[in-house]
């Protein structure tokens, strides 16, 4: 099973533009945005969009990423001493989660949790959480 995740994840990365094109085709009826118009976006937005599509293509991401919210708060907005994830970039999230995965501290519950996910899964979870709205949900 893990292989499917890994391979589709990396497969998608190579085919980003194709996926992007497909998803725009899919919504074209509702939102008349031509593929070419992406070119008009500032570079930053374009990369964001590409990242979003990694998450989009692995569409289980919502149910998987929300498994973080029991402790880190709905949409990653923590209201306790546990760190907030919402508002962090995907790079930062990947860094933070991977660090907990490798750092073998016997008293770290998060070390066990992080260790349960593949690097590819961590990347999509990070991509999803960084795509969520920044304002508090309440």
């Amino acid at each position, binding site marked *: *099973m893990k292989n*499917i*995740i890994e391979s589709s994840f990396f497969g998608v990365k190579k085919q980003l533009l194709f996926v992007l094109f497909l*998803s725009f085709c899919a*919504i074209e009826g509702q*939102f008349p*945005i031509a593929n070419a*118009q992406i070119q*008009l*976006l*500032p570079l*930053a*937005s374009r990369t*964001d*969009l590409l990242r*979003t599509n990694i*998450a*989009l*293509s*692995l*569409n*289980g*991401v*919502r*149910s*998987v990423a*929300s*498994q973080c*919210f*029991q*402790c*880190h*708060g*709905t*949409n990653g907005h*923590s*209201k*306790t*001493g*546990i760190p907030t994830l919402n508002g962090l970039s995907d790079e930062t999230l990947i860094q933070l989660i991977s660090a907990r995965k490798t750092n073998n501290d*016997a*008293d770290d*519950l998060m070390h*066990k*949790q992080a*260790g*349960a*996910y593949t690097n590819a899964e961590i990347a999509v979870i990070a991509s*999803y959480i960084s*795509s*969520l*709205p920044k304002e508090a*949900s*309440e």
Partner: protein
Amino acid sequence: MSNKKQGLSRRHFLQLMGLGAGIAAVPIITKAAQSRPHIIVVGGGFAGATAAKYLRHWSKDVDVTLIEANASYQSPILSNLILNGQRSLKQLNFSYDKLVKNYGVKIVQGNVKKIHSGKKFVELEEGKKLSYDRLILAPGIQFMDIKGLDRKKVLHAWLPNNEILQLKKQVLSIKKEGVFLISIPKKPYRCPPGPYERACVVADYFKRNKLGGKVIVLDANAKVTVNANNFMRAFYETYKDIVEYIPQASVEEVDSDKGVVVTDVEDYRADVLNIIPPHQAGALIHDNGLANDKSKRWAAVDPLSYESTETPYIHIIGDSQGTGQPKAGHIANSEAKICADAVLRLLSGNSPYYFPRTNSACYTPITNKTATWITSTYAYDLTSNKMKLIKGSNGTSKKPTEANYQRMYDWANSLFGDTFS
């Protein structure tokens, strides 16, 4: 023209793609010309409240009604700490107001009696009928009988209600050299570490108040079922003069007036008995023919969607379901999200996500200042069609610490927030 296009912010794009609201790749529900899909959730515990909330959090295209017997929820999580005076029930009481206000969940207070799965409606005790497109059941557990057990006198305090306050009164009435006895049923039961945790906090109360006395732990299991290192150290070191741990002792009969417990090994007498009887899925599950797993105690479900293997359009989550995952509040919340996601997908004509993850995490107090933790993560296994423990993902803290005691409150408050607000 191009100005406008260039002005499209990232936010706009995400919204256009249905991501602004965190709806990644799940198509908008289309039920053209028909009424909006209606999902009924029965039971507002950790499982049901989370399901109701996340259905609406992820989609405003469905209507969600949560039917709950009580006006508010008293969390069993942290409730043991009421016994040694570290928490009040008020701190563990949650209303459903925020689910209404923040997510537009409709709340109906009432008791569901009968499910009409053919015509897809539920019937409440007072006769009210409500129809559904999908039904999610989260009624928790009910107890099985033990000979001679009078549950008005001998308490379990194992359900989300205020019985823990009565148990506390009983504990406070114990005099010097008095005896408290707790019994643990065979696995599977609600909250694997819970009974050991309760033994620890009662022993903590005995120790700090210099009561002498004994806490007898009768375990129907062969050994401590979870976090054994920490609990055994607590029983044999921290509370060595107080706790008497007796494994493989199954309660066969209780004299509720005399405070005597008959086991297959020996008889025990105590001033306060706290008998936790074996349990099974909530009455709603049994009364409607949904307790169809091998043991006939729990509801067999598809772990991808939590849909009953018995009756279509009915999903069962939390302690009532029989996937073999631990019966606990943290993972009940976890299952509820998998189920909510699957229900939204099914309503939009898609199939449930094929690789769900669930996790369990729990901080357990050992004294009034220290706690330990346990955790495990589960993944769907295609060959067995089961949720399987991910190798190496389960573990416990090395020892109880004060830092973990503080983290316990953060963990619980986060879980309460993610479930009820």
